[in-house]
């Protein structure tokens, strides 16, 4: 009879250290793909969200033509369908559905499939985040810009969006952290992200809790270090170095001047 004697220690910490040192390349590859998908998904999602946020914020006035009224109405209707559908269904279900609809494209490009799915999903959340960011601004910002002769487009690009993005930055950063964790659902379509690679390791050694303890620590490391970086950027944005127009309604501007007085 054949027997196999493994060198895996029996305690949780010992086993985890053994598993991590022996299977580090598999974990590393998974963590790398998780970060690639989460980062590109968040950035593309933000671009989608900005586009939709702008479309949804298009103003119409009573004196505008009927045509413009109906165009704006239908744009709002279509974008709200997108937002509601992708916020109202689990990303795991979206992954299975989108992957199978575009199978010829995604079959040999699973990382790409993962990025597309996370981007579309994040886009829906970002649209709401950007809308909230735009709505948080004082109406006077818009009026002031219009009164100095800026058109709708210029007002949006140079006055509204820079402030909206700045106000929404914590929520945008939060989406990135959420995405690092949520890419784990992509294992359902076989994207080689961190969760998928962990099931591989668990399948080699038939030790489930030890392997996923290592996985949990890696996820925690990824999310916590990301949070630190985001906090640093937020801090930099709030205290000087930001030359864009700033809303008078943002009390942080005071902190900016108080800080300047102190240093001078």
């Amino acid at each position: 009879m054949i027997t196999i004697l493994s060198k895996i220690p029996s305690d949780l910490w010992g086993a985890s250290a053994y598993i991590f040192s022996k299977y580090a390349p598999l974990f590393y590859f998974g963590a790398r793909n998780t970060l690639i998908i989460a980062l590109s998904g968040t950035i593309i999602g933000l671009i989608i969200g900005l586009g939709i946020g702008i479309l949804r914020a298009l103003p119409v006035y009573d004196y505008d033509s009927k045509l413009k009224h109906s165009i704006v109405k239908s744009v709002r209707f279509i974008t709200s369908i997108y937002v509601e559908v992708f916020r109202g269904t689990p990303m795991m279900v979206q992954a299975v559905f989108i992957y199978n609809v575009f199978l010829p494209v995604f079959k040999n490009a699973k990382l790409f499939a993962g990025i597309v799915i996370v981007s579309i999903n994040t886009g829906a959340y970002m649209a709401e985040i950007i809308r909230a960011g735009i709505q948080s601004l004082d109406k006077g910002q818009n009026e002031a810009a219009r009164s100095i002769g800026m058109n709708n487009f210029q007002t949006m690009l140079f006055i509204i969006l820079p402030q909206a993005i700045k106000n929404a930055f914590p929520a945008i950063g939060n989406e990135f952290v959420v995405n690092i964790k949520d890419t784990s659902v992509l294992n359902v379509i076989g994207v080689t992200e961190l969760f998928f690679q962990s099931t591989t390791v668990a399948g080699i050694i038939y030790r489930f809790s030890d392997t996923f303890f290592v996985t949990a620590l890696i996820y925690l490391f990824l999310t916590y270090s990301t949070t630190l970086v985001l906090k640093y950027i937020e801090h930099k944005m709030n205290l000087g170095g930001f030359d864009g127009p700033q809303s008078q309604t943002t009390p942080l501007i005071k902190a900016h001047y108080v800080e300047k007085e102190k240093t001078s």
Partner: protein
Amino acid sequence: MKKLLSLFALISIVLSACSAPVAENQIVVGMECAYAPFNWTQVEASDTAFLINNEKGTGYCDGYDVQIAKAIADELGKDLLVKKIAWEGLIDSLNNGEIDMIVAGMTDTADRRESVSFSTPYYQSDLVLIVRNDSSYANALSLKDFSGATVVAQKGTFHDTVVEQIPSVDHMTPLGSFALLTNSVVNGEADAMVSEYPVALSIVGTNPSLKIISFTAGNGFETSFEDTTVSVAVRKNDSELLNTINTVLSKLNEETRSNWMKDAIERQPEGE
């Protein structure tokens, strides 16, 4: 909406034209790469292992199934590409053309035969139960001794159907992978799990708190020959490939098969 759909269709056509074409001279096999010693993943390259998905970083796949797949590829004069696919996704991936065959320790069943074709068997093994050393079932000799035990098996396998043969069994909800099954026995959620003998060897190798309960003839699970064998699955209309596979398998006698399995058990990453 129509425009949007046609735009999507256009994008997908353009993208599919760009995505890497599968080489003509290649046969793609699908397996879990997580079912040692039939198929497993390892970090290092070796003569017998294949780079998973042909993509650096996902590891190398080796095992008894890989050797069978290699023999088939050699007969066809094609290069072998191993794709790692979860158990539930194997048959779908075969039918949507992502892979050409499944060599994954899969048993030929009537249900599966509705959607795929199976070759002649390429391995036969006995069904065993795995229990904890300190469990009250550790000295069991027959299925009757497991009366009242909580028993678990892998979801969507015939292992899960034979559980009912144990008298007054507490049939636990099946789980997705063997790592999960092992986990539920180790932490006491289940008293025993169903496994094939070679797989059980790998499991108790990495989990010293577990032991194998094998049964002598008449005391174990009642199974037909088909139940305890595993076969290669191909698409239903792929009779040419099926014939080649059967030719290859007919050349592998009982001795070669058990030697290959013995080698696989000794080669697996947590061996030594």
